[in-house]
Each structure stands twice: as C-alpha cells, then as structure tokens.
C-alpha cells in the first residue's frame, strides 16, 4: 500500500526548455552575423605573417584583380550614397536616384567615370557581369588618375576612413606601383594603409614551420 503511493520519477530531463533557449540564441547569431561582403572580383591575396585585423567600419577598399583592374569600394550604404552624390554633382554625371541606389548597394565599382552611368543602370546583382575595365590609375595626380579622384571623394565623405588594398598575388607590379603612389600622397593622407593578406605561420614563433 505505501509502496504504491511513491511516485516514480523519470531520470529523463525535459529538453524542451533547453531547446527553446538554444534556438533562440541560434536565431540571434544567425541574424547578427554579417557575412563577408562579396568582392567585385575574385581575388587571391598573398600571405603574410601579420595578424593585424582590419575593422570593416570606416574603410575604403581598393581591390586589384589578377589582370590589374582596379576597383573601389567604401563601407556603409549611407556613406556610399553621400559619395555618389558628391561624384554626381562634381562631374555632372546626371545619375538618377535609382542609379545612385544601385551604387550604394553594389560591392564596388571598377569603371572609368564616363562608363559609370551604364554600369549603374544594372542592379547590384548584375553588375558583376558588366565588363568592367577597371578604374584608370597612374602615378600622376592628374585627371587621368581617376583612382586618386575616388580616394579624394572618399576622404571628403568619410574623413576617418582608413585605406586598405586588397590585391591579387598575380597582379603585375606597374599597376601596384601606380596604386601605391596614388595613396602615398599628402592630399589623400593614404601613406599609411593596409594590405589585406591571408595569414601564414611566422617562422620566428615557437610553433616552427618545417
């Protein structure tokens, strides 16, 4: 009779609550994660031992692909809107609002100013198929060096922006020299910049390679 009264307790724990919490967290992290923004072109960066991290806020990114084409991008939709407004006004491109939005949502452009309009007619997802010749760049600071103009506009739009160069290992040196010379200029304050690299083992560290 007394034996009958004692309720037998199961050892199985109710997982429902834990499941709820974990999926809540999962949802949060999935939504909070910002994935790497897509590059305008595929780039294989060279490796270095430097493990400095580049914050993706306040950034001007210059991409050099393996054929030496140069692309320019800035972070933030609002910043890019201001940037394209400034360029449109300064160079009388006559861009429509839709074209400006297409620029703000794009992942960087690589065309001379006179082709900017035909590129921005395309929505951001189709801009990759546009045959971008790259932003004209040379070692001078003349009108021909349009990368210098881009960087100068970017400086005005966001004075705090840091410059970062993401180059493909196979890019030939003349274009690299032109980009470096454009940045190392008092007018754009770019003589300190980051070169985005992948990480390789430091042979001076204890965990020695080979």
């Amino acid at each position, binding site marked *: 009779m007394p034996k009958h009264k004692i309720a037998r307790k199961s050892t199985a724990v109710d997982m429902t609550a834990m499941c709820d919490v974990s999926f809540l967290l999962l949802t949060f992290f999935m939504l909070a*994660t910002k994935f790497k923004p897509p590059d305008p072109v595929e780039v294989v960066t060279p*490796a270095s031992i430097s493990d400095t991290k580049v914050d993706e806020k306040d950034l001007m990114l210059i991409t050099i692909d393996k054929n030496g084409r140069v692309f320019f991008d800035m972070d933030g939709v609002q910043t890019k809107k201001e940037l394209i407004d400034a360029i449109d006004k300064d160079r009388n491109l006559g861009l429509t609002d839709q074209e400006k939005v297409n620029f703000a949502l794009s992942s960087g452009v690589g065309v001379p100013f006179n082709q900017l309009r035909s590129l921005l007619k395309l929505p951001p997802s189709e801009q990759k198929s546009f045959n971008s010749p790259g932003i004209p760049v040379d070692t001078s600071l003349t009108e021909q060096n349009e990368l210098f103009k881009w960087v100068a506009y970017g400086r005005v739009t966001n004075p705090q922006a840091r410059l970062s160069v993401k180059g493909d290992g196979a890019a*030939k040196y003349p274009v690299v020299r032109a980009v470096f010379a454009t940045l190392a200029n008092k007018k754009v304050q770019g003589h300190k910049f980051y070169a985005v690299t992948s990480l390789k083992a430091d042979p001076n560290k204890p965990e020695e390679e080979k």
Partner: protein
Amino acid sequence: MAQLDTSSSGGGKKGGSKTKKLSTRVDLTPMVDLAFLLITFFMLTTTMNKPQAMQINMPVERDPKDPPPPEVPAAKVLTLILGANNTIWYYEGLESPEIKNTDYQEIRNILLDKKKRVEAIVRPGDKITSVVVIIKPTDDSNYKNVIDILDEMAIDKIGTYTMVPVTPQEMALVDKFKNAGATTPAAN
C-alpha cells in the same frame, strides 16, 4: 509540456493488455546538440570575420625644409631587384657589378647573413645601425612578390628598407647576367 497523456489509450494499468505503450515524447537531445553546434559556428564566424592585413607605410613627399636623411655607407646596403618568375637579383653596396640571382626561399639566409655582417661593423655613434635594404621591383614582378619581400623584412626584423624604382643601368646589368647564363636556381 510537450508530451501527451497516453495513459488512457493503452487500456489502463490494470487492464492486463499486452500491447506495449509507446511514449510520444521525443528525445530532444540531438536537436539541442545540433543547435549548440550551429550557435558555436555562428559565434566564431562573427568574430573571425575581420580580414587580416599588413600595415604598409609609404613615405610622404619630402619637405625641402626637412633635414636631409643621413648618408648610408655603401657597406651597409643590400639591393634587391625583384625580377620575373619569382626570382630576385641582389647585390651589396651601392654600385656593384657583382649581381647574383636567388629566389624567395633563399633570400632569408642572405638577408640574415648580411644583417649579421652589418651589425658586426657598426661602431658606437653610427647613425645607421643595421642593414639598409633597397627593394626595386621590376615591371615583371607581381604583387605577391612585393608583399612577400615586405613580409620577409618583418620576419627578419629589418626595420630600414625602402622601395624605389629600378634604374635602367640595373636592368641592363640584370639582362647581361641573365644572358651570360648566371647560376639560375630552378624557377618555382
């Protein structure tokens, strides 16, 4: 909560029925495992997102009012010319016809050796206390070569280096040695 009362469906405890009662309760453990695995993944990717980079400081244009930079004794200079196909031509001193060929694996030993030899000849009061490396990338070299050699400076802890354009005389010298069949290590 997430379980149904099945006690009445099996015919009761004392009904003597032989049919086994199946619980409708699902084991959530694997599901929780999976959820935590994904949480871990998203947590890690969120922080690992930032790209790695090396900082490059380019010289700004010199102000004419600035004092001139100290003179560098020829014995402390090593010049590297980055050539095509991942080769490096190098010579010691400022003007030396003895130009040698190497690659990006061997260059570390050459740099460390030169650094050691320069530090041995430094006297107290010298302005230049370590080797000065002049990097001259030719138009045939690529971005990877430039980054590799700048990285090599960081690995070998050489603080004084500069990147300048290659001169026509040096190009002529390189061509001469190339045609003379100088010991060319296997291109990699």
